[in-house]
């Protein structure tokens, strides 16, 4: 299995868990991002994810390297789905195994936060009353220039 993949296929949580499982692991943490129906009062019909695939896979791998440097002894896999997703579909799965439990939570949390910072994937909400590219019209968020840290 490619541990860092962007795919149009449904994600297989068990496959990622198996991949990170090892005799050295005492803890596996998985984060699964799913399509939520309501955001505030907006009702989602479906979502569409788009990615710059080769770069996104490189960035996922970079996150894996960062995690293994910060939490030695970690095994990690990340898959992100793109294309059209319905309510409750899985958009992202992160699986992290570590010898002890605290690191599994910390490393998995770190990975999802980094995905939201540096991986070129975009979500387009298809609401009852229109569409919206998430992340580019929220003028309350200021984006500093240059490479994302």
């Amino acid at each position, binding site marked *: 299995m490619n541990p860092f993949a962007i795919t149009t296929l449904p994600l297989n949580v068990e496959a990622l868990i198996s991949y990170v499982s090892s005799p050295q692991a005492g803890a596996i943490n998985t984060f699964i991002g799913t399509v939520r129906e309501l955001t505030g009062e907006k009702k989602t019909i479906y979502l569409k994810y788009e990615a*710059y695939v080769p*770069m996104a896979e490189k960035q996922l791998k970079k996150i894996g390297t960062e995690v293994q440097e910060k939490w030695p002894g970690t095994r990690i896999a990340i898959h*992100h789905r793109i294309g059209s997703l319905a309510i409750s579909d899985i958009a992202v799965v992160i699986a992290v195994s570590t010898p002890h439990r605290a690191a599994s939570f910390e490393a998995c949390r770190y990975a999802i936060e980094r995905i939201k910072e540096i991986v070129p994937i975009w979500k*387009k909400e298809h609401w009852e009353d229109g569409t919206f*590219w998430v992340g580019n019209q929220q003028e309350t968020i200021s984006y500093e220039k240059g*490479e994302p840290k």
Partner: protein
Amino acid sequence: MISILLFAQLQEEAGCSEVEIEADAVSIADIKTLLQTKYGIGSLLESCFVAVNEEYVEDTVVVKNGDTVAFLPPVSGG
């Protein structure tokens, strides 16, 4: 030749996902001007990150013949 990739809303604004230009040693600023004047891309361009050959770069980089330049709106994966 330099390939310019556009994603998400940028792609919708330009009406295409890839633009090719015959050039060498072009600044990111020059490419932005081209995208704004010729392809009608708006202010979103100012909040985009730029990647050259699949690596994030600073806006000050100079792009050479054979490079692929991607304009990346603020990401929203996860």
